[in-house]
């Protein structure tokens, strides 16, 4: 299983805080996961999650490149951060 979290403006646009996905539904890596979520869940997801500035984190660390996914991983998608 894979846990997928959404934050900030993206969370509101999707109307979704988090998902649990089987590894089969998720895909083998971050790029596949993001593409699968965009294509399987309709136009709203495609537009929001396909935005160019979406940041990805794998197991609570931001990752700039693609990365392989493993059972039990936690993935997060969110817009640029605005704390401080």
């Amino acid at each position, binding site marked *: 299983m894979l846990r997928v979290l959404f934050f900030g403006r993206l969370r509101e646009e999707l109307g979704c805080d988090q998902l649990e996905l089987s590894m089969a539904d998720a895909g083998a890596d971050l790029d596949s996961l993001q593409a699968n979520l965009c294509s399987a869940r309709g136009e709203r997801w495609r537009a929001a999650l396909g935005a160019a500035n979406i940041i990805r984190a794998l197991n609570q660390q931001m990752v700039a490149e693609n990365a392989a996914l493993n059972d039990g991983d936690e993935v997060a998608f969110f*817009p640029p*951060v605005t*704390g*401080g």
Partner: protein
Amino acid sequence: MRPVLEVSVQETDFDIRVLQQSLLCDESRVGGVATFTGYVRAHSEQRGVASLYLEHYPGMTERSILAILEESAGRWPVLSARVVHRVGELAPGEQIVWVGVSSAHRDAAFAACEFIMDYLKTRAPFWKKERSGQGEHWVDARDSDAERADRWQGQQ
């Protein structure tokens, strides 16, 4: 001696005097403490702000800030560094964030404190939503924050 690094993410307000005191080791090796405190402003981009809501990513927030503190302690002779960041609903004038760094000398304290704030702004998973008379909206990230963080890349 290893630097003392601490991170707190909390809904409650904080006392800057108590925080600064926590940066002083009892052997009086501290020559200076640099701090930064961020506040909720009453106006933002021509809009009046009634309140600010801070969302975060529990777990990753603490980890990412601790990683920033560790990086600062690797770059400068930090004795102690601490970040307190609030989440939830905040009113104009309230304290949002406090960063404090103690060192034997002021240059290290200043540089580490500013470095931590710049990285916090671009690497710690917080998102601000402003509420005003005209409704509510998510605050956009600023290019200038990314540029400020980038300028530390070339430096050691």
